[in-house]
């Protein structure tokens, strides 16, 4: 969990300095993956089984977010 938080921090650095917009979108993707991993490990710590539903919904919304960002980018350049 600590290592994943460190990953989140490094991803935030790339999110801040990323030279282009697609860089930021991929960094967002990785942030979502990190958060899903953190939720999974937290579920193991607490033993509360309901939290894994949060991970399902979060993976769905992360995919939706990155796809919609890419679509928006495609729209504004044409």
């Amino acid at each position: 969990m600590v290592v994943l938080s460190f990953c989140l921090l490094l991803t935030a650095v790339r999110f801040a300095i990323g030279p282009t917009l697609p860089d930021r979108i991929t960094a967002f993707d990785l942030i979502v993956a990190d958060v899903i991993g953190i939720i999974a490990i937290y579920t193991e710590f607490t033993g509360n089984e309901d939290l894994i539903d949060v991970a399902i919904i979060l993976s769905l919304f992360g995919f939706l977010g990155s796809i919609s960002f890419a679509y928006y980018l495609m729209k504004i350049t044409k």
Partner: protein
Amino acid sequence: MLENIDWILVKDIISCVFILSGVFFILVATIGLLRLPDFYIRMSAITKGSTLGLGLILFGLGIYFNQPSMLLKVLAVITFTLITAPVAAHVIGRTAVQNKIPFWEYTNLKEFKKYLHREHLEEVVNYDKYEEQVLKKKKKEKKEKKAAAREKFGE
């Protein structure tokens, strides 16, 4: 001999190994995100590393809980990640090519250029900055043609 083994401890150790290897893969993906030179290489590093890492972490979680319902949910998340991560990466990469994000100077682009030539898409993409400089030196007329074609494409 077999009765002496503490199976719960074995289960814990196996799930711990899975989760730690998953965390390691995500850490490698993050370092790749920070260190690699080009957008496209970064994107490939993230997609592969985070998919494998998430799969391992969630599989370790499923082993730890040792229940069918939990394993089903975990498998759902893994399947969803496996389906969606490559699709998202493909869409973002396609958008990046259309947006003319520059390639790394050492990237081998021969096949890509051949493909663009075959599909008559050369006006859509411009290559390296270096390539552009060479083209400028060689032929200025060709660039004017390109500009005209680009205007056509804009219409």
